[in-house]
């Protein structure tokens, strides 16, 4: 039995914003952050002077510059000097650190960001450099290859098939039509999708995420401050992340035990969620995650269009938490958000948001 990981202090998401999600932006990462932080703060009547703590998630390899987060600090107005931290992870992990920091109880407001300009380099060349340096990186082991190997393992095990995967893509594009921030949207015919060429068999174009430039910023506040800042704050009632070993060859690719344990620790099992936002950048990942999280047909999954509609690396997971918070802002009771990192769902994060603390 895993102890449920709930906060000691009431902490809520009170607002968030994201940049337009596009294939290539003219703006620098710092400019994206300047705009998106302002966009997250302004509706709440807050300024940068009100921020007690910031945590930024970004990746030097994607930016192509060592310590690239240092120039991103120019976007937070760090004068007089501020409490700040950085994670070389999706902004969802930056949110986790801010959530921990707020539990100290001495500060009230934190801002977290996730940012990445994937168009800056070729993701299929950058990604292998982050893999095991002895056995994987020298082969140029790229994200599409790992995803395809996991998809075939799931098909071979009878857990999914190419048609079910195409149905996930079609539903995501359909749902994305009502999301003004989504990059890939529209109606798609399953048979037409299945007639497409393989990019990495058994994956076709529709099974893959788009390449997206973008950033997201989120504002967290503690208890009473959160209630003053907005109606219906989205309280984080459970939050956990777990990792498995790195090389997918050592793992059972038809399961995701780290997701299961993180969800249990975050308290998913204690009452039902109405919506789930899963960071499934590939169609088969959504199928596996739904199965591992035991989400029934009554749970609305990735109504935003998900990562298949826009995939701003380093912000994709934080945006999932934002969409889940939107559900609570809009009258919902309970939502789940998931983020992931590493090849074949190596590390997984689960965040539960609720109307009541």
């Amino acid at each position, binding site marked *: 039995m895993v102890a449920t990981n709930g906060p000691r202090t009431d902490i809520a998401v009170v607002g968030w914003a994201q940049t337009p999600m596009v294939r290539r932006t003219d703006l*620098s990462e710092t400019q994206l952050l300047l705009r998106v932080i302002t966009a997250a703060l302004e509706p709440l009547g807050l300024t940068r002077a009100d921020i007690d703590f910031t945590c930024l998630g970004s990746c030097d390899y994607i930016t192509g510059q060592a310590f690239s987060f240092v120039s991103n600090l120019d976007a937070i107005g760090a004068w007089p000097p501020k409490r700040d931290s950085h994670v070389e992870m999706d902004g969802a992990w930056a949110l986790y650190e801010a959530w921990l920091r707020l539990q100290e109880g001495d500060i009230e407001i934190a801002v977290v960001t996730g940012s990445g300009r994937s168009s800056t380099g070729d993701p299929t060349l950058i990604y292998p450099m982050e893999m095991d340096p002895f056995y994987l990186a020298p082969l140029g082991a790229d994200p599409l290859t790992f995803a395809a190997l996991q998809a075939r393992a799931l098909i071979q095990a009878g857990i999914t098939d190419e048609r079910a995967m195409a149905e996930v893509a079609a539903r995501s594009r359909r749902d994305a039509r009502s999301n003004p921030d989504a990059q890939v949207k529209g109606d798609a015919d399953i048979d037409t999708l299945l007639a497409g060429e393989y990019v990495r068999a*058994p994956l076709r174009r529709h099974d893959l995420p788009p390449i997206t430039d973008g950033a997201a910023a989120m504002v967290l506040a503690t208890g009473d401050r959160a209630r003053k800042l907005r109606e219906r704050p989205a309280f984080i009632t459970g939050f956990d992340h777990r990792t498995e070993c790195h090389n997918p060859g050592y793992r059972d690719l038809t399961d995701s035990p780290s997701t299961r344990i993180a969800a249990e620790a975050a308290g998913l099992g204690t009452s039902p969620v109405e919506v789930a936002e899963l960071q499934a950048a590939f169609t088969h990942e959504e199928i596996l995650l739904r199965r591992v999280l035991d989400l029934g047909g009554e749970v609305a999954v990735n109504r935003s269009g998900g990562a298949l509609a826009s995939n701003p690396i380093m912000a994709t997971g934080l945006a999932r938490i934002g969409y889940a918070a939107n559900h609570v802002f809009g009258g919902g009771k309970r939502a789940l958000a998931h983020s992931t990192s590493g090849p074949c769902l190596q590390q997984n994060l689960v965040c539960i948001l609720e109307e009541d603390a």
Partner: protein
Amino acid sequence: MTRFVENSIVFPYKRSLGPVIGAFMTGLTEQRILGIRSGDQVIVPPLEWDPQTGAELDPDGMVEVGPAGTVESWTWVPAPSEQHPLGHPFAFAFIRLDGASTPLLHAVDTGAPDALRVGARVAPRWRGSRVGHIGDIIAFVPGEQPEVDGPDSGPAEAPVTMMDYNASITYRNPVPPVLDRLREASRDQRIIGQRCPVCERVYSGGRGYCPIDAVELGEEQDVDLPHTGTITNFTIVTPVQYPGQTETEPFARVFVLLDGTDVILPYQPVVELPVGEVRVGKRVAAAWAPPNDDIDDAGAMGGAYGHLIGWIPSGEPDVEDPDLVNRIF
């Protein structure tokens, strides 16, 4: 139209291998593939610890597996990248070598995807000349029998302890419009800065935003800066001959606070100022390239100031200010 610039970064890593991965790599030079025992499992490729439990494993427990194995999962790469092991379409596969408990990721060279299936039997095609690198196996090929490509130069003479890894990534970045304005103004021997409308600080260097107030600065905030300033701090660089270093003799990089501005210009080159005469408080003036010269990106501020090529002594008396040295931003 936003201008984009490309630059490539080379990552030349040299890594030590340790007792287990080193033995695996040495084994490859001998056309042998080694795993390591963990309980009743044989982990391939081998690690110094069990990937599930973290338990330390005994390097004496290394055992030979394969050479043939069975495909457990595969995908087809129709358009290989420059980092991939083969230059023509091939498969990546998880291959469970005979005697192994875990699969090895490697390339399978079958010519076409229809020759592949889960359960297919494959064996290594060895490079004739092997150095102790996962690429000593060119790829796996269908069948039970290993092959050697070209003349066999035999095993390594000594155990393999190090590994080179070289990658090069090309990045494509937008040039902030302010930098183009700075560069263009430098043709007319003008130095452009920007004044923040909130705090009224004057920024040199073409940052494009005020980091204090976190507001973007546009063309309407451009101001002409004076051409004289003071060295606030400096370093003398003795060049190490890393890849890309073109300097061979010690050279100065100085921080210049232009008169009437609020931030320094960092890491500036100097002109007609010997290394031994660089000092804090020295007054300098802008040095310009002839207007018709083609300017590459090697000038001041990585080319941002174009025709401004560095700083030359102005002949004015030094500034005596003990706080000056603290100005590094």
